């Protein structure tokens, strides 16, 4: 799961919650400065979103004079279009004429920045930034190939390079097991079905494989789950069975464990592999 996925899922959840709380919101989506649509509703066609971005682009491109755009509010007879900027993320909402704009604005101006701040804090999404232990490359004596006239002393050094590299190679090998795998942020999902073991969580097989690769193929059988309130638990882990959750950044946690950890579906938790 990439950092973008975590952002997208968390923002999509936040957006869904806002829409649940305010049914007067007809359309809502979040896009980045780059034009990438991070989260949105299924009802707004992509074509319309592109045209909306285009319309706002005209304002963004000329807003330097007012210190950049923080918000845009368009009031029409049949409703309102509002854009709120939160750093590089921009939220667009279309509301009906009867909507309570104060309530909607308060909700979005609190909720979205909070989610974004939280994501920034917990962000260092892990696997993406981990230096995968690849086999050390054999040093290339590039200095020999360069046509610049090098004094004989340097040439000698270049030839000696492979010999110098050897101990480094060994050093790297011994360092591999000491890799500390940072926690991965995953979104809590319920486990459905009968006879669900209460001590086992389910994680995407891709994540498990990545962890196993980092631990030189050792099987990851246990993980530590940490909530953002600091509650932790160690439990067994198995791959997710339901294909609809593949690649979604989900951790399926039994209901009983959710109660113990005081978390619920849709919340983020940190998951760390444990090798015994």
């Amino acid at each position, binding site marked *: 799961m990439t950092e973008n996925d975590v952002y997208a899922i968390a923002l999509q959840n936040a957006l869904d919650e806002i829409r649940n709380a305010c049914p007067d919101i*007809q*359309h809502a989506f979040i896009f980045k400065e780059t034009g990438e649509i991070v989260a949105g509703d299924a009802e707004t066609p992509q074509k*319309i979103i592109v*045209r*909306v971005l*285009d*319309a*706002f682009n*005209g*304002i963004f*491109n*000329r*807003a*330097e*004079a*007012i*210190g*950049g*755009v*923080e*918000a*845009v*509010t*368009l*009031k*029409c*007879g*049949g*409703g*309102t*279009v509002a854009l709120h900027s939160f750093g590089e993320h921009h939220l667009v909402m*279309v509301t009906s004429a009867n909507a309570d704009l104060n309530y909607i604005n308060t909700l979005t101006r609190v909720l979205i920045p909070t989610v974004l701040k939280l994501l920034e804090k917990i962000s260092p999404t892990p696997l993406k930034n981990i230096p995968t232990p690849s086999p050390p490359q054999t040093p290339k004596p590039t200095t020999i190939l360069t046509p610049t006239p090098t004094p004989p002393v340097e040439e000698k050094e270049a030839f000696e390079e492979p010999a110098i590299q050897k101990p480094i190679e060994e050093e790297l090998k011994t360092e591999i097991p000491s890799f500390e795998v940072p926690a991965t942020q995953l979104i809590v999902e319920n486990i459905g079905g009968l006879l669900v073991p209460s001590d086992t969580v389910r994680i995407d097989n891709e994540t498990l494989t990545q962890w196993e690769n980092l631990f030189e193929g050792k099987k990851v059988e246990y993980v530590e789950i940490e909530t953002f309130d600091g509650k932790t638990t160690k439990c067994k882990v198995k791959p997710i069975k339901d294909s609809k959750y593949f690649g979604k950044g989900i951790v399926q946690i039994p209901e009983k464990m959710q109660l113990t950890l005081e978390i619920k579906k849709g919340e983020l938790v940190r998951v760390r592999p444990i090798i015994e």
Partner: protein
Amino acid sequence: MTKKKKSLEETATSETLTQPIAIETATAEDLKTRLEEIKGYDGVIGYILRNATSATIDLKDPTKLIEYAILSSSALDAAEELSELFNLGDTRDILVEGKDTKILSLTIGENRISIFLEKNADIEKPLKKLHKF
């Protein structure tokens, strides 16, 4: 708005040329008077009043005149586009809030108005004043 533009063109080609233009000018003059008054409100930096025949610009900091004019024009264009995209009917006004300043733009008849305000200035008072027709 397009309808009104069209009707204005039609009137211009007709023989009774003087009367509608006189009405239009009177409205613009009235708006100008109102805008002059609005300019005295707390936090109001200036305004632009534009129609097919004339433009009045009054800004405390004239160095930003062109940038403000282009931005307010872009805002009004975006307003029309967005209103059409989402089927929202008549555009009332568009407020663009920046880090330092905000711009309130609206169209009254053939007149495109933009009021420039400090970030924390009240927009309701100028709006009320403008809509008193």
